[in-house]
């Protein structure tokens, strides 16, 4: 078999309706952004699943390392005062 290019890898993010987040759906192969968008449409939105698509070259995404997750997310672990349940409210106070 010859060295056959299967084109570049793009990650696909789909917004299901206006007002929602774009959510990762999977990936496609394409040689440029226009082809990536069209392929993503054909593969991930055949039943009206989307109102908007983002495609991102897979090698442009930086991802945190799961092995470092404990350390990486550690700064948020000891700040309970960031949650509303941390505070003591006076007895009888309403709508707070």
């Amino acid at each position, binding site marked *: *078999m*010859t*060295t*056959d*290019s*299967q*084109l570049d*890898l793009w990650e696909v993010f789909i917004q299901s309706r206006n007002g929602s987040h774009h959510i990762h759906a*999977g*990936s*496609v*192969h*394409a*040689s*440029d952004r226009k*082809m990536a968008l069209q392929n993503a449409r*054909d*593969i991930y939105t*055949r*039943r009206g699943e989307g109102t908007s698509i983002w495609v991102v070259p897979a090698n442009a995404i930086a*991802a945190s*390392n*799961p*092995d470092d997750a404990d350390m990486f997310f550690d700064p948020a672990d000891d700040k309970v005062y960031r949650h509303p349940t941390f505070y003591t409210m006076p007895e009888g106070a309403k709508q707070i």
Partner: protein
Amino acid sequence: MDHQNTVVRPNEERLSKFEEHVGEGKAVEPRDWMPEEYRSHLVRQMSQHAHSEVIGMQPEGNWITRAPSIRAKQILLAKIQDEGGHGLYLYSAAETLGISRVEMIEQLQTGKAKYSNIFNYPSLTWADIGAIGWLVDGAAIVNQVSLQRTSYGPYSRAMVRICKEESFHQRQGYEIMANMMNGTADQKEMAQDAMNRWWWPSLMMFGPHDGESPHSANAFKWKIKRHSNDELRQKFIDKTVQQAEVIGLTIPDPDLKWNEEKGHYDHGEIDWDEFYRVIRGNGPLNKQRIAHHVKAHEEGAWVREAAEAYKTKQAQKYN
């Protein structure tokens, strides 16, 4: 001596952490540490699954130009396009394990990777399109519903997406069968003939009996598999018998009988000699299916080359 221990210990530690993690029903994501065997099991299973979707387009493609109405033709085209899409979801998910699309295609074309045996049988009549949708997709759905809870995140997510789309496939197949069973004597005979030819291969789709399933032990421990081959096969039989009865089709198994005590159907013995004969490449159409895939792949090479050339040219223009 010590040297060996220092190499082994960290991995053992990671393995027990990994097993604890999947044991709690938590998902494994692409960049998480995983045992090599977990990775290779998934690569094999997911690529085989993807190849099945893609090769599965062939028996149905055989009927596009001969579909009996424009409605049937549109539906069949949409279904085949879905199968292609399902193959791509799965290739995309398998690629997260570090295997490239090129490698997977090469493994398919050289016979190193398998695809579902069922697609080595021919689709001889229009009723076969009904039987494929109803029985083959029906069996696939039972398997895929179970795989929605598989431990590997990208595989599980692809399965959820696929299951949403598959029920249209099964219903369109059942509708074809029901229509034919409402038709002329010849049409009824054609539907029953398709039933007779597709029933047993559909049961074989679930793989060997649990005792003879070669890759099962770790697959269960690591929650790649959630239900055994026999459990899933039983589930398929139990729900399909009633559907056959409703439209007047006979299941070609004289030993099929409701077992009140078990609450399941008992069924006759599957011809495993045939199963292994087809798996080893001696089914009716093994060679033709791969030859067709190679041909389509090679004939499409110029498109990929042109796309690459266009990309290079655009890059030069704007740099």
